């Protein structure tokens, strides 16, 4: 078994025992990167001449990892998978990456994403689409597509991601791995290319809950460059994992999980929900109390549009710095307006432009109250509803999406409006800044599916511990993607 397919603890042990060197690990990871690049197109850059690091007592020392390409990395091309930054080499490194590097972690590649994180398919990056390693005719989901693909294929044990709607947690689900975004402000966003600042989270994709805990322990911390960070020095994610979940209480939402809600349910959805309910039974057998609760479907169905309005509005503004004047390939034109227009017209993909138009529209004086302010009211309503539940429950547990990865050729997917809320509910985790983790919970036709656990702010230790207990009692920990043939 290749070292890069092992857990962080195992790799660390091997390094400590001198079974393997940092150099060998890097070679293995680079080699694997090239294979994965060829097959699935997961990387913007592969850092072939990266230097090895010293093995220390830190679990992450000398171990390779991947960085989503929207993290600013000094001296290393950082594109956000956009033509607007196709040659941009920053002169400063994001705090979260700096924190990992200080612990001796070794970045070996930059991963492909949906352009600036604004997409959920992994198909809009300027270097082309990322294919799902379980079935290359399907998508990885996004936006952290390359990171999910690379971790699932055993390029390394972890890669950083960012999550504005479900950009870590959805691709993790589609690739059969773990995706975790901690409470808002636990990891500094300084140096993360922004999409929608009030929703953006840094996080990680791994193959186990423990690995996620180890990595976020290393990434997190208050940062004088990010006012939304808070002091988490008393939170020790890795150390607090016990697997003891006696007396924990979780709930699931009937309107999302009951098959009767979906009169036109596909076979995949039926299996997905059936599997989910089996895992709920598992929860009970390991000591977790599980209750069904009910939330007005109207509120649930408002999640997606609330997200679109807020995220597009913030994105329009956040990306106004992309003018091609200070950085990026400068546009042509007789005056600055034409120069900016030329640069932006050539640089952005149509999907992003559409979102900019939406963002501008909802912020216009005559529309602002109807769209932007109402979206914020609904956001508050949703967050309050979730917070109310956290008074009784440690976490809300829900299935991720309506089944396994979707086809890259969208026409092959059954369009179903009934499942909109099921597809998008993880966005509430971004509305509230809640800690949220996705873990694989089964297979449908050989393709992984997942469940999500979301808890209250600052309760990350609790959430990871519940996820760990469940993971330990299922069979999907540490799995590496294998292409499956079916149909």
């Amino acid at each position, binding site marked *: 078994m290749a070292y890069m397919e092992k857990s962080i603890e195992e790799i660390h042990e091997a390094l400590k025992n001198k079974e393997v060197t940092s150099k060998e690990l890097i070679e293995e990871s680079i080699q694997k990167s090239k294979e994965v690049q060829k097959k699935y197109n997961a990387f913007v850059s592969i850092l072939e001449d990266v230097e090895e690091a010293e093995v220390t007592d830190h679990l992450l020392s000398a171990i390779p990892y991947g960085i989503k390409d929207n*993290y*600013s990395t000094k001296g290393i091309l*950082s594109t*956000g998978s956009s033509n607007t*930054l196709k040659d*941009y080499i*920053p*002169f*400063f490194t*994001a705090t979260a990456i700096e924190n990992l590097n200080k612990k001796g972690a070794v970045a070996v590649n930059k991963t492909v994403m949906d352009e600036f994180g604004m997409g959920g398919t992994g198909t809009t990056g300027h270097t082309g689409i990322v294919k799902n390693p379980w079935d290359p005719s399907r998508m990885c989901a996004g936006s952290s597509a390359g990171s999910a693909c690379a971790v699932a294929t055993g390029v390394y044990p972890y890669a950083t991601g960012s999550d504005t709607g479900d950009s870590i947690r959805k691709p993790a689900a589609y690739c059969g791995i773990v995706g975790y975004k901690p409470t808002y402000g636990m990891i500094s*966003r*300084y*140096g*993360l*290319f*922004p999409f*929608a*600042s*009030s929703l953006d989270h840094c996080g990680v994709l791994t193959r186990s809950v423990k690995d996620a805990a180890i990595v976020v322990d290393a990434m997190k911390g208050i940062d*004088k*460059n*990010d*006012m*939304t960070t808070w002091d988490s020095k008393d939170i020790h994610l890795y150390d607090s994992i016990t697997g003891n979940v006696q007396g924990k209480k979780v709930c699931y939402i009937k309107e999302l999980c009951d098959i009767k809600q979906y009169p036109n349910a596909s076979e995949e959805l039926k299996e997905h929900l059936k599997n989910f309910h089996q895992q709920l039974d598992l929860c009970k057998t390991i000591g977790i109390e599980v209750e069904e609760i009910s939330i007005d479907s109207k509120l649930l169905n408002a999640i997606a549009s609330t997200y679109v309005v807020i995220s597009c*509005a*913030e994105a*329009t*503004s956040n*990306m*106004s*710095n*992309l*003018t091609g*004047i*200070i*950085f990026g390939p400068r546009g042509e034109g007789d005056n*600055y*307006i034409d120069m*900016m227009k030329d640069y932006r017209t050539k640089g952005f993909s149509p999907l992003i432009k559409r979102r900019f138009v939406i963002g*501008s529209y909802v*912020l*216009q*004086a005559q529309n*602002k109250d109807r769209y*932007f302010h109402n979206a914020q009211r609904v956001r508050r309503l949703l967050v309050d509803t979730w917070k109310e539940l956290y008074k009784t429950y440690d976490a809300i547990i829900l299935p991720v999406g309506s089944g396994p990865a979707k086809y890259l050729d969208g026409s092959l997917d059954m369009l179903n409006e009934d499942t909109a809320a099921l597809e998008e509910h993880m966005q509430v985790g971004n509305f509230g800044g809640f800690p949220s983790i996705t873990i694989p919970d089964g297979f449908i036709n050989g393709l992984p599916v997942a469940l999500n656990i979301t808890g209250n702010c600052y309760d990350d230790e609790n959430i990871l511990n519940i996820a760990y207990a469940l993971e330990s009692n299922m069979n999907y920990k540490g799995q590496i993607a294998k292409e499956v043939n079916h149909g």
Partner: protein
Amino acid sequence: MDKYKVLIGLEMHCEISKTNTKVFSSAENSYKEIPNTNVRPVDMAFPGTLPVVNKEAIRKSLMASIILGCEQPEYMYFERKNYYYPDLPKGFQITQETKPAPVGIYGELEFECGKENKKVRINNLHLEEDAASSDHYASYSTIDYNRAGVPLLELVTEPDLHNADEAVAFLETMRSIYQYADISEADSKKGQIRCDVNVSIMDSDLDEKDSSNWGTKIEIKNVNSFGGVRDAINYEIERQIAKKEDGTYDDMEQQTRRWDEESGKTIYMRSKVDAIDYKYFVEPNIPKFKIAKEWIEEIKKDIPKLARERKDIYKNEYGLSDYDATILVKEKDISDYFDQTIEENIDPKIASNWISSIILGHLNKNYLSVQDIFVTPKMLAQLIELVEGKKISSKQGKEVLYKALMEEKEPTKIVEEEDVRQIGDEDSIKQVVLEVLKEQPQAIVQYQSGRTNIVDFLVGQVMKKTRGKANPAMTRSMMIEEIEKR
């Protein structure tokens, strides 16, 4: 003119120059001649950079808010004002809208205009970041990011001013407040003050309190000196009156104009209907934070004595004339210099005379500020003491002070090195008087024949022999006494 009443509102932007760093950036906040030397990544909006609020800038803004009698907010928010311009690297400016509350809202300021007291209502005061500065040439433009992110206080008045004099007097009062409260140097030469001026006219028989009687509001952008404000207002009043007189006033739409210093005219920029929609929304990267009541109280206590207060002290406690007191408080640095001089136990009236006659004269003549000069208040005090103690004459004192200012030398050193002193003991003076009389027998004869003004010549001889050190009054009386004896 009397047919019409003029309503003027001001938007005064003043950079807060007295913080170490910029308002949302760790770059140094100081005026630099060399472009692009005070710049951090966030000032150029490199991807992933985030704003971090400078607490001292907030403190100073709150202080200004308190001085202006505004309400302070319970929570502080910032908002994004979105628009594209090359000098705005982020594509938005972080500023404050009136909702939620900015650093100050609904205040009032009393100020002097000529001999009259006037009042102006403050609509709001808000803290924002300055843009970069750009220069345009024939075939290219340059951008200097030194100014990008410098804290900027924008003050918006109600249209309570009625002529250019009032507007300028108000601005001068504000400049003095910013300087005295250590908020800003408020130096328009450094571009620290910029104004937008709103001017409208209305028939003077109508009630100004009813806003439906107001005329069409014309906004004049980017007036960068007080002289410019005066000229722009006067030009605009004339322009609008002319429109009233020729009957085209009612066709005039609400509009934004710009002040062109060179031609001395306001020039049409855009109509109200083309106003930019700035798409404001709350800046998500700066969490709202509570302004503690205790903090406000603390800031209140920290407000230094302002010009009006100092002027009252100068007049009522020190007995200075209104004229002298006004001169001394006009610039905070001068007032500080005066205060520091009298702290050395110098009589305020005497200190005032020395400062307003010699020091201020020197500054004005050489275009200097008081910080530029070598002579400190302590040095000045030492010199005044020598004069008051009759160690040197006041004429000598003045000469020494001029020399000290020009040659950048300590006055006491000049006195010592050049042996400047006043001979004041009778014996020494008498000795020289007798010597002179002995040398000038014909002068005694002339005196006795009635040419008494020959004494001037004789006193001059004593001065010559003592190189000006003899006390002139004593010399004169002694000389007359000796001649009379003969």
